[in-house]
């Protein structure tokens, strides 16, 4: 079993500490089993990025934790209580990869409807209208909104009431970079006190937002670790300079970058020091390969 927080990152969890545990969880659709004996425990507020190729079981995992799919074996526990035994859904917010908004309603009608479902107040609706900057669309029909605007409204829904655990299935898919960044910022703020499980196909986004990585393959859990522990097989850095320099002749090039493979990140400070000593005016040094890519190969 994998366990987040096992490396002792003491951090208070909301309401005295909510934990989410999957114990030998198997689940699927009808007779087709998609998840196979997935086990992990999360008891630290943070963003847990769930990665895996298409069909790996990410959405199935979220749907099972959310209680939409019934486990064929194993159990989902929140605070040590199986979700079947009631109460647990009050701890959870679930944002599907679908918008989940009826086209025939205006933005305000839609949020009012979900506020009733969530037992939120009109003041909560007013708050999220400002928080997600969607007040100007309140009278617009959902069907008339752009993809980004729809996603904002959809996400506004999960901010109507605070909960301890957030399941977010590809919340930034099909969004322009600006909106995606704003939403990531919101989620990062949220994760200071809440557990956020976040699935994405965007590996750069995953690396930026996640503190932990959970990977699934063929419905089985293959990795649960801190992001900084995920290393690429080859550690390649790219160097950009302010002016052309003969000191880097012979280095492999990729666009503006001069490339060098190192044995690990601990060699980077020495390399920078060496280049500066040779008169190279550095503009940027960055890791060229995303180690998360290796998780898909």
């Amino acid at each position, binding site marked *: 079993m994998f366990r987040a927080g096992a490396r002792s990152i003491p951090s208070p969890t909301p309401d005295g500490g909510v934990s989410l545990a999957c114990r030998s969880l198997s689940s699927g*659709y*009808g007779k087709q089993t998609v998840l196979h004996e997935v086990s992990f425990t999360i008891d630290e507020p943070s963003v847990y990025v769930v990665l895996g190729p298409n069909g790996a079981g990410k959405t199935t995992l979220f*749907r099972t934790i*959310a*209680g*939409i*799919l*019934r486990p064929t074996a194993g159990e989902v526990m929140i605070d040590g209580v199986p979700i079947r035994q009631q109460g647990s*859904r009050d701890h*959870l917010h*679930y944002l*599907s990869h*679908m*918008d*989940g*908004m*009826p*086209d*025939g*309603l205006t933005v305000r009608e839609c949020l009012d409807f979900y506020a009733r*479902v*969530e037992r939120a107040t009109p003041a909560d609706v007013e708050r999220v209208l400002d928080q997600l900057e969607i007040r100007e669309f309140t009278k617009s029909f959902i069907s008339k909104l752009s993809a980004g605007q729809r996603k904002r409204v959809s996400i506004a*829904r999960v901010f109507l009431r605070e909960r301890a655990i957030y399941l977010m299935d590809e919340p930034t898919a099909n969004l322009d970079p600006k909106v995606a960044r704003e939403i990531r910022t919101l989620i990062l703020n949220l994760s200071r006190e809440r557990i956020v499980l976040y699935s994405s196909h965007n590996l750069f986004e995953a690396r930026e937002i996640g503190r932990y990585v959970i990977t699934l393959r063929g419905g089985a859990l293959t990795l649960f670790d801190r992001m900084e522990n995920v290393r690429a097989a080859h550690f390649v850095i790219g160097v950009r300079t302010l002016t052309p320099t003969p000191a880097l002749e012979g280095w492999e090039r990729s666009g503006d970058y001069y490339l060098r493979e190192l044995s690990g990140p601990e060699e980077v400070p020495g390399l920078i020091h060496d280049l500066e000593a040779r008169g190279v005016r550095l503009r940027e040094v960055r890791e060229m390969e995303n180690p998360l890519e290796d998780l898909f190969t």
Partner: protein
Amino acid sequence: MVVGRISLLLGGAMIVLYSAAFGIGGPLFINIGSVILPVFAVSGGLGGALVFTNDRTKGVLEYLVAYGVSPRQILANALLAGIVQVSIVLGAGVGAGLTTYLLSGYPLTPALFEVLLAYTFPMSYLTVTLMTTVGVYWTTLSSPRAGLNSPLGVLPLIGVAPTTGLLLLALTLGSYSGRALLIGELALFVVLVSLLARTDRFMPPERMLSPA
């Protein structure tokens, strides 16, 4: 939502014109008009199944189930939507028919009330409830398709079929027609109850997921 409103408007308009025309005919309204009214009422009561299908496709139902709303409650809401719609359509239709009936100088008779209360209203509610239940169950078993090959395309036929079948039976039986209609209604009620009793089997939570 929009398709539900269109269904309501079309059904309402059709039934008002139909009833008003038969109301002018006096006894024709009692003997034929009131008996065929449920067929028209069905066209206005499609809203429940339409909204259910639309909400499922958009992922609304997935969200609701995640928040603890049971498929049984979702079906109940779809039925309620259908019943409210058919009440509006039926109210408008019977109102229009009775208005032209009375304005044409015909008296209110026990036979008129009997056909409305024993047949027109219960048959309309039964067929719309049956149609919505079958439509919802069928939708949960399938992916969205267009036209007559889809649950929604076939739904009006499912709604119209029991009424039409009963009327043909009644016509065949002649003097036993009234009794045949009542027995038919009872049979429909039994079918409906047995279908509703199997909601958990036909509508497990995973069938509320969007097929998209």
